């Protein structure tokens, strides 16, 4: 990954509720994530992991409560999203090439030299030789590489990964773990939702378990750490 040009940023969730009709996806979630932490969210399907990450990405609005990005001791009020977001879906256009996809999002994000940034990221994710191929011709692993490249276009201080290794073969998952390690080591704050223990979950410095929209366990060390991550498969 390119040298970091961001200021370390944490996130504070305060009393987050998210309701869909009468159903609570999240209930009174309060968390403070320090800058540089690598947090793994675990929990069964429907426990609220994805909803929490989408709220952090500002793709969903909480029914009540607030999310603030913290830079040092300063609370930042962002008009532009701070976080890079990688989901299970590629968030890329099948009918555009890898390069066209990245150029499109770079231009929309107002990046100063979109072509140069695109070139750098295509090299970093190992897709420079396939830059002119349509994304619809890509394998699942290649699609996730494009997703990572798109998420890193504006050099975000916070990276949100929503079940990013689902459907990847062992080689793809290994590449992804290596990328997450580089992101973590560069000082970025990482929030990721995972299903069970994996090469990626081993990189977490904090594990949080969600159940029915509430935080039921939160630890940084100890025997409980692995049990929280393993719980997702239960």
């Amino acid at each position, binding site marked *: 990954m390119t040298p970091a040009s961001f200021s370390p940023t944490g996130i504070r969730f305060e009393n987050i509720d998210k309701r869909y009709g009468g159903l609570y996806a999240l209930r009174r979630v309060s968390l403070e994530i320090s800058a540089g932490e690598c947090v793994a969210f675990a929990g069964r399907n429907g426990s609220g992991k994805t909803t929490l990450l*989408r709220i952090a990405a500002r*793709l969903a*609005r909480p029914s009540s409560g607030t999310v603030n990005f913290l830079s040092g001791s300063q609370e930042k009020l962002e008009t532009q999203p701070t976080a890079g977001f990688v*989901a299970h*879906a590629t968030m*890329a256009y099948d*009918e555009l090439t890898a390069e066209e996809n990245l150029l499109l*999002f770079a231009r*929309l994000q107002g990046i100063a030299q979109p072509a140069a940034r695109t070139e750098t990221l295509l090299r970093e994710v190992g897709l420079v030789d396939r830059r002119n191929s349509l994304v619809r011709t890509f394998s699942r692993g290649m699609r996730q590489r494009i997703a990572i490249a798109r998420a890193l276009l504006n050099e975000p201080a916070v990276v949100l990964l929503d079940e990013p290794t689902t459907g990847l073969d062992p080689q793809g998952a290994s590449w992804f773990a290596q990328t997450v390690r580089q992101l973590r080591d560069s000082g970025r704050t990482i929030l990721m939702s995972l299903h069970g223990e994996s090469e990626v979950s081993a990189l977490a410095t904090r594990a949080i378990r969600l159940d029915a929209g509430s935080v039921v366990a939160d630890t940084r060390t100890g025997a409980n750490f692995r049990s929280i991550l393993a719980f997702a498969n239960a």
Partner: protein
Amino acid sequence: MALLSKAAVLLGKELRTEFRSRELLTTTVVFILTIVVLFSFTFDPSVSESRRFGPGLLWLAFLFAASLMLQPCFLREQTNDTLGALRLSVSDPFAIFLAKLAANTLFLLFTQVLLLPVFSILYNVPVLAAFPQLVLVMFMGSLGLSVTGTALSAISAQARMRELLLPLLLLPLLTPVLIASTEATAALLIPNPAMRWDWLGFLLGFDVVFLTALWLFGEYLLEE
């Protein structure tokens, strides 16, 4: 300016993806041609009948074509969650709407201009005498269809029974646009064509009102 430049970038994407997949244009052109040809052979109308019923038939065909075109407008952004990526990249969601409605208007106008000569030949109605005025009316009518349809497409894409919801919402809301467009078109197909500025003014008013509403409330239409 930032809004317009981002909308232009997005419009480029809309045009590029459409001309690569040709999903919308192919469906729409084939659909409209089928209707116009079918009615021509079924009723074999005289020139005076064509002038009376032609404008209504044309706009009915455009309406159904528009509803076919508008349905996937936001729906196909859900396949890979590209709408999420757009929302993460664009600070003002109105840029997304602006690009989509510009693309829909252009696609619709393209099919209309393509259809006019076919209509003229099959129904024996000369259109060349008032061609520029006809294009203006079609542009204003298409803009009305697109503005309303793009907004409703965003709403219906996130709903259950989305395929049913869009036409249900679209048809009653578009009745004023269809009446105004049909009246303005009819006045241009008579032997001494004249522009009906009153109907054109009505279309302009409709477009401005819905565009303003989209600008003010568009953000909420894209929310999860």
